[in-house]
């Protein structure tokens, strides 16, 4: 039972990534968008090589959430365009496993985007990104997981709905604000002139808690919501 769940999730993820490796469409567009978001902010905010305190953490997370929304909308748009989501859902497998596979594929993409984003933030905003690499990676991984867990569910729900492009951010941002708060505050605690490690630790713990809730809720609602 558990074995088949992971096998299905693995196959769905591999399918998504194979398509992506061939076209590179989502990765390249998302990456370019994320970089331009950071650049726009740096033009607007950085003066003489210095940015106000705490700004770098905020912009890092704004870029992650903007480009994440773009990526999840695109991956599901591809399924809708080819009408393959129906085929996926008709397959004799657990629906939650399909959700998990989609989520994993999205996470791989976003991880690649973040690998480019973090050094860029360090460069443009003078943020000490290498001071605590382990904690920063934990914050990014957990925050992206919580954000993408809700986003994958909502993007899947919206596939059949009119005006899905505008509705996805409208629904997603209010719900994922706690994750954003934790991500931004935790990262800001690491980027400060005198890093506040207990604070960062606290936000990492809170993120674990949220991720558990969000993923459980998403696995639980995916089945009834995707049934026609």
């Amino acid at each position, binding site marked *: 039972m558990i074995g088949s769940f992971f096998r299905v999730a693995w196959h769905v993820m591999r399918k998504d990534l194979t398509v992506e490796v061939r076209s590179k469409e989502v990765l390249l567009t998302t990456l370019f968008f994320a970089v331009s978001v950071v650049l726009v902010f740096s033009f607007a905010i950085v003066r003489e090589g210095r940015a106000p305190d705490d700004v770098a953490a905020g912009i890092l997370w704004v870029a992650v959430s903007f480009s994440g929304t773009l990526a999840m909308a695109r991956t599901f748009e591809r399924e809708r365009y080819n009408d393959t989501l129906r085929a996926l859902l008709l397959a004799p497998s657990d629906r939650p496993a399909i959700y998990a596979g989609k989520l994993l594929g999205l996470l791989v993409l976003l991880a690649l985007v973040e690998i480019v984003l973090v050094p860029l933030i360090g460069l443009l905003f003078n943020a000490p990104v290498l001071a605590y690499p382990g904690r920063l990676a934990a914050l990014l991984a957990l925050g992206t997981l919580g954000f993408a867990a809700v986003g994958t569910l909502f993007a899947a729900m919206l596939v059949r709905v009119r005006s899905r492009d505008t509705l996805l951010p409208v629904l997603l941002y209010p719900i994922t604000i706690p994750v954003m708060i934790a991500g931004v505050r935790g990262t800001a605690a690491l980027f400060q002139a005198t890093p506040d490690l207990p604070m960062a630790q606290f936000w990492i713990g809170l993120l674990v808690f949220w991720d*558990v809730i969000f993923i459980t*809720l998403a696995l639980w609602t995916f089945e009834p919501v995707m049934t026609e």
Partner: protein
Amino acid sequence: MRFSRLLLLLLVLAPAGWPAAVHARQPPPQSEFLPVSDIPEGEQIPAFTMVGGAYGFVWVVLLGYVWSIARRLQKVEAELTALERRGQ
């Protein structure tokens, strides 16, 4: 399945107990807000305007909402009776 739902419910309800736990490690609150009397004379707004404004706003919103529901309900019920008559 039933058990997993119960577990989820517990998980969802658990954070209700969190604020207390968080309070313990919270730094002492900073007071960056001025008491009213310290605000310069020119920025003071008479309390009466505020209270009157609040009451007026509550009244207007509630009346408007009652009116909007009544109108929508009337429209739908008229449509319903027309449809039912046509069906018979």
